[in-house]
């Protein structure tokens, strides 16, 4: 070989020849060889080439549905519902299905921001040790899970502030209002539980129970029972709301009442129904004048009379929820609607209203923080009362309305430590990010707050080993507490998270009527993992005494609206994406059930209104409230009041990974810091202005699954 033509070159040439002939021969097996690594130690219960199924709990929202995850060779392949879990009985929603796209998301936080976990634990230990306990605060997600218990124990033992749970879902469900209304009417706080399955007719005042409200899977099952019940006729369903939600779309009658008048409408229907039935007029309805209400609500009096006639003759279940409660008079709306149930004698009856029972290991109803409570939390941050803030399972910078000033307040906290799995907006502002495992890599348990008539404790176990250098937050806290020593070490005398969970769960062994039982804790824990949780075979729902609710005096007060604009504003949680789904590409690509929009945020405007304003589909508008402004594309939505506009919540992230970042707008930015009596933010009580920013341009606009031509007759050259 000469210098010019080395052996290497020859090999290159030969390789080129090989590649060419490989192409020519349609690729021999050599082009397909892959490398395969065997297990070093085969995990127990695993079998070469076979699928292994693990039961765990879905962490996409706080409902606590059971999952069974199919794994193959150490990878999670598919999630299905856990049929053993009485909450979801083997079913999942879209978010549960897409949870794998969170697990294998390309934008996860891959390790502690300090580089290694020793220094991370040191940092947490320092934070615990170097500050006074009352300067340390925990902000957690809505789920009442083992971590919440662990932190609560740590807090109560050391004098730290009790952990605060918050989630945008709870805020948009107006949980505090529901709970407060129950307390006011029945003397007991808790989440009402509506037996839609057994009802003849359902009147829902803004409750979007088929989407994200409280626990959508059991309520969907209830809805199926309403429609398809074996023993009765197809149940009717009436929805009162200003903007047709995916739930309202399934209603037989959709009644677009003016926002803020839901309570009045309820009382008016009650009065008309009571009149139709004859007898003494309950005190509750004495103050309303149905004719006035009809005018205020923007509906025909005849329509109300027809609905009332239905009420008078059939067993009607009235459900308050959603934007109807997020008004200045929201508490009264909730009470008025709940009180309506007395007309059908629904309390504690099949097809009626109960309070959700307590979950296992729960002594009293413990609701997540209301927005108002978050505001005082933020104020403590600002005032410097909190010097250390731990954040886990929630993304407050995104989820807490901007007007509450959470992001600004973060600057006043000396140490912000985020345990975020994903690089969300809060993590971006934190001093340290010590990523927790993804839900499918984690141990745990979760109390089911509502949705099942049984007390359910959903169990979680890792279905795959952690993909990145993450660590369970409970483990980090335990290790840090040991390191900090003193009362911290005493408060958490556990080897690790698993021991903590075992200690807690094995306490259930003593309980009667369990879904399984075992003689020793090891077996009990094994069953707990195998079954994906534990539940009690008893009806734990609390029967309510509603005999006196109609004696209440409802003022029938009018809602007050904040802001100058001409439109009522209805923000709603995106049914497919909810608050934390935006980073999962397949959730982005699911069509919204009502608008079929994918990947973006839209503003729903009635076509008539849009015509008057000279707006068209895909125009960009600015929505302006007293608290802020956002820009989004126009969607001419045929099922919304002309005086109302609506926007979905779920997009508008400035961080949170490539699929979520800089996409759409966040309507929470428009919400002013106004609260109802129960402390929920009045997200339905805003008035907004709409300004056109840009006209629709060819090829730019909302991605819709639907055809505007086929569905609306656009571009077909027809008058419409």
């Amino acid at each position, binding site marked *: 070989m000469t210098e010019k033509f080395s052996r290497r070159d020859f090999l290159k040439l030969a390789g080129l020849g090989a590649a060419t002939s490989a192409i020519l021969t349609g690729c021999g097996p050599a082009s397909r060889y892959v490398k395969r690594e065997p297990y070093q130690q085969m995990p127990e219960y695993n079998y070469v080439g076979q699928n292994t199924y693990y039961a765990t709990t879905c962490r996409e929202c706080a409902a606590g549905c059971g999952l069974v995850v199919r794994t*193959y060779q150490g*990878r*999670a*392949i*598919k999630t*299905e*519902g856990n049929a053993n879990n009485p909450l979801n009985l083997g*079913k*999942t*929603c*879209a*978010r*549960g*299905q897409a949870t*794998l796209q969170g*697990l*294998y998301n*390309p934008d996860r936080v891959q390790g502690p921001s300090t580089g290694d976990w020793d220094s991370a634990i040191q940092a947490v230990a320092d934070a615990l040790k170097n500050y006074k306990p009352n300067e340390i605060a925990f902000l957690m997600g809505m789920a009442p899970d083992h971590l919440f218990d662990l932190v609560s124990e740590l807090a109560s033992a050391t004098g730290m502030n009790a952990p605060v749970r918050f989630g945008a879902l709870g805020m948009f469900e107006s949980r505090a209002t529901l709970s407060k209304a129950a307390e006011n009417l029945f003397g007991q706080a808790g989440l009402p539980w509506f037996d839609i399955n057994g009802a003849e007719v359902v009147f829902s005042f803004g409750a979007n129970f*088929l*989407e994200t409200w409280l626990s959508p*899977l059991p309520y*969907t099952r209830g*809805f*199926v029972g309403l*429609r*398809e019940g074996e023993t009765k006729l*197809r149940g009717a369903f009436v929805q009162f709301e200003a903007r*047709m939600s*995916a739930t309202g*779309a399934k209603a037989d009658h*959709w009644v*677009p009442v003016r926002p803020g008048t839901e309570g009045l409408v309820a009382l008016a229907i009650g009065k008309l129904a009571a009149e139709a039935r004859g007898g003494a007029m309950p005190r509750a309805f004495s103050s309303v004048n149905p004719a006035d209400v009809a005018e205020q609500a923007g*509906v025909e009096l005849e329509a109300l009379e027809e609905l009332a006639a239905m009420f008078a003759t059939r067993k009607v279940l009235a459900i308050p929820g959603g934007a109807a409660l997020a008004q200045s008079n929201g508490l009264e709306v909730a009470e008025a609607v709940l009180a309506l149930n007395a007309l059908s004698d629904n309390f504690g009856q099949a097809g009626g209203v109960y309070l959700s029972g307590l979950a296992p290991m729960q002594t009293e109803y413990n609701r997540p923080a209301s927005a108002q409570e978050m505001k005082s939390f933020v104020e403590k941050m600002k005032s410097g009362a909190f010097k250390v803030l731990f954040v886990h399972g929630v993304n407050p910078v995104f989820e807490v309305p901007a007007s509450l000033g959470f992001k600004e307040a973060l600057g006043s906290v000396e140490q912000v430590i985020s345990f975020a799995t994903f690089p969300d907006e809060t993590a971006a502002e934190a001093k340290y990010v010590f990523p927790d495992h993804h839900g499918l890599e984690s141990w745990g348990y979760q109390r089911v707050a509502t949705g099942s008539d049984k007390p359910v404790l959903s169990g979680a176990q890792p279905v795959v080993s952690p*993909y990145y250098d993450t660590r369970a937050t409970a483990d980090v806290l335990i290790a840090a507490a040991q390191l900090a020593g003193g009362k911290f070490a005493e408060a958490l005398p556990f080897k690790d998270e698993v021991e903590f969970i075992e200690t807690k769960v094995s306490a259930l062994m003593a309980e009667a009527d369990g879904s399984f039982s075992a003689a020793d804790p090891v077996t009990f824990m094994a069953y707990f993992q195998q079954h994906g949780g534990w539940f009690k075979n008893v009806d734990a729902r609390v029967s309510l005494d509603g005999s006196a609710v109609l004696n209440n005096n409802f003022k029938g007060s009018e809602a007050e609206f904040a802001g100058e604009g001409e439109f009522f504003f209805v923000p709603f949680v995106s*049914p*497919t994406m909810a608050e934390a789904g935006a980073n999962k590409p*397949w*959730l*982005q*690509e*699911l*069509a919204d*059930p*009502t608008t*079929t929009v*994918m*990947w973006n945020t839209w503003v729903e405007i*009635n*076509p*008539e209104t849009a015509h008057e304003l000279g707006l068209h589909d895909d125009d960009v508008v600015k929505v302006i409230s007293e608290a802020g402004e956002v820009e989004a594309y126009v969607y001419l939505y*045929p*099922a*919304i*009041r*002309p005086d109302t506009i609506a926007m979905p919540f779920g997009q508008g992230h400035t961080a949170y990974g490539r699929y979520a970042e800089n996409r759409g707008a966040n309507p929470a930015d428009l919400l002013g810091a106004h609260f109802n009596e129960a402390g929920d933010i009045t997200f339905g009580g805003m008035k907004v202005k709409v300004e056109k920013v840009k006209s629709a341009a060819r090829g730019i606009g*909302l*991605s819709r*699954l*639907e055809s505007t031509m086929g*569905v609306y007759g656009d571009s077909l050259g027809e008058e419409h």
Partner: protein
Amino acid sequence: MIRPEEIKMSAEETGKWGMVINQDICTGCQACVAACAMENNVTFVGEEDSGYGRSMHWIRIERFWEGEYPEVKMTPNQPMLCQQCGSAPCEPVCPAFATVHSTAESLNLQVYNRCVGTRYCANNCPYQVRSFNWRDYERPEPLPNQFNPDVTVRRRGVMEKCTFCIQRIHKAQDKAKSEGREVADGEFTTACAQACPANAIVFGRVDNPQSLVSQLAHKGHGVKHLEELGTLPNVTYFKGG
């Protein structure tokens, strides 16, 4: 005169696997769509392409509007997926036999590795349920970890569509065979039916009169879409209400 019950149905006409979809209880929640995507390695295409009719959904939920505000109503959600026609218009037009009828399972197969991408099948599908891989859509690492090993990952230039989760059919049949029995009704189901929170989708053997899907299909006034074209679809819809 021939009475209808005397007409012997051919295998194509009776079908083997079928589905009943109850639109009255379908809430449009998209769980089926997500479940299908996860089970069948269906790719996402991003905002621009999905808005340009290039989304890969094997099942989509259609809905229309009736009336004008305030009397406006949304029509019942209509999950639309491959109807697994007994006499499918997509099949005869494929020049390469990539879209071909499975005699064994009475399904419309899409043989990805045989597909050359003429897209004639998609043109000729009256239900417009076929999706084409317009690009090699990127699924960055580590997203491919969730790929279902039982389903081929498709690349650019290939047509694809709902298979009635044929991998699950095979798995169940294989299991039953190894245990020396027939597949029992309800032993397995498709990903969409399994996920559906409302149980609005029921899957099973339509040639077995005892199966749940047969019994549901013969109850009330089910509709098979575009049956007038002679496609012999195997999905029955109930509008209800």
